[in-house]
């Protein structure tokens, strides 16, 4: 279970830097739909179901499953280039906090 306090205590700078380094912003943006959904849209989707959101997002960015793009086509999700779980969780929590 992920607490709202954990979500609130995210390091936004580190999360943004990790996302930028891994080209996440090529397909996602904070508040606009690109190839992938906006981070705000994801946060709204998992509002009240943060634990489920966290599991789903960690799966997406660490295993690279097929994901549906906004235009309906499918593409393998990019696997993030870090094994630091704290770093990954910080990124996920930042997205959920939006």
């Amino acid at each position, binding site marked *: 279970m992920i607490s709202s306090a954990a979500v609130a205590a995210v390091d936004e700078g580190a999360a943004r830097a990790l996302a*930028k*380094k891994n*080209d996440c912003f090529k*397909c996602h943006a904070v508040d606009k739909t*690109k190839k992938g959904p906006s981070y705000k849209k994801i946060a709204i989707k998992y509002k009240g179901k943060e634990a489920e959101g966290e599991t789903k997002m960690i799966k997406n960015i660490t295993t690279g499953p097929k994901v549906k793009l906004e235009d309906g086509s499918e593409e*393998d999700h990019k696997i*993030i*280039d870090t094994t630091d779980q704290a770093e990954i969780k910080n990124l996920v929590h930042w997205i959920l906090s939006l």
Partner: protein
Amino acid sequence: MKHWKKLLIVCAAIAGLGQLGAAYAGNDGAMASSADRSLKGDQVCTECHDENDNKAVLAVYKGKHGVKADGRTPGCQTCHGASEAHVKNGPKKGEVGGKRGAVDVVFGAKSTLSTREQSEVCAGCHKGDKRTHWTASQHDSGDVSCVSCHTNHTHQDKVLKKATQPQVCYTCHKEQRAEGRKMSHHPVAEGKIACSDCHNPHGSAGPKLLKKNTLNETCFTCHAEKRGPFLWEHQAATEDCSNCHTPHGSNISPLLKSRAPFLCTECHDGPHNSKVPVAANAGGTQAGLTAVPSENYTGRGCMNCHSVIHGSNHPAGALLHR
């Protein structure tokens, strides 16, 4: 009758204005369609490479390459190619930190193309005029490509601005940077002139990529008063300014290679109190020497007396005194 004439003139003026407006609207429409076409092509790229991109790619729209109202302005694909391998090939399954394939035309150090091939992409539009002598010029032969000096994805290309251009040139030309810091120098550091005021980096018919065909011709574009023709010439000055001057900087003003009298005695090595002050080191003959000069002046600053050293138009100026 007069009223009818006035009315006709007013009607003609209104009709004329109407036609002008229609022509302007038509022109505007053509501009809009060319801009739309270009931006639609760019959209393929800007969909991912937006304001959040690691590189400030969008800044290209702040520069000259982003002026979409001009139909000649390129889109992303004009320079980088259609790049289907980059657009369609997403990350491979299971690949950690996977990257897309490269675009067709990459510029700079990471490019698989030779510098000449990279430059040819730019030369597709930027040809002729100042770039006529590019092929086999010093920069072309030295594996310098356009992007070695120019930056396009920025609002202001440093090399196109007088105040910042020397920083770009000095990246390689370090000796000239050091010389430019000497006491006597052209006002490059002060931002009043830039390297390209004397040199054409894109190639020239003259030596050292000078803008004009000879060194003197280049210097005379600013120092016109030294051009002559003179009644009494100073042969060294007429031949080559760099006989006495160094262009980038010197600690002997004004940009002299050595201090008088030593600079002068490199040619004028005869005794001052003789009728042959020009000895074997200098060609030509000494004209107008009617009296034997005093030996008292030997070893003094020559320009104290020979003040019009570049040449004189005074009837009695043979010794460049006046």
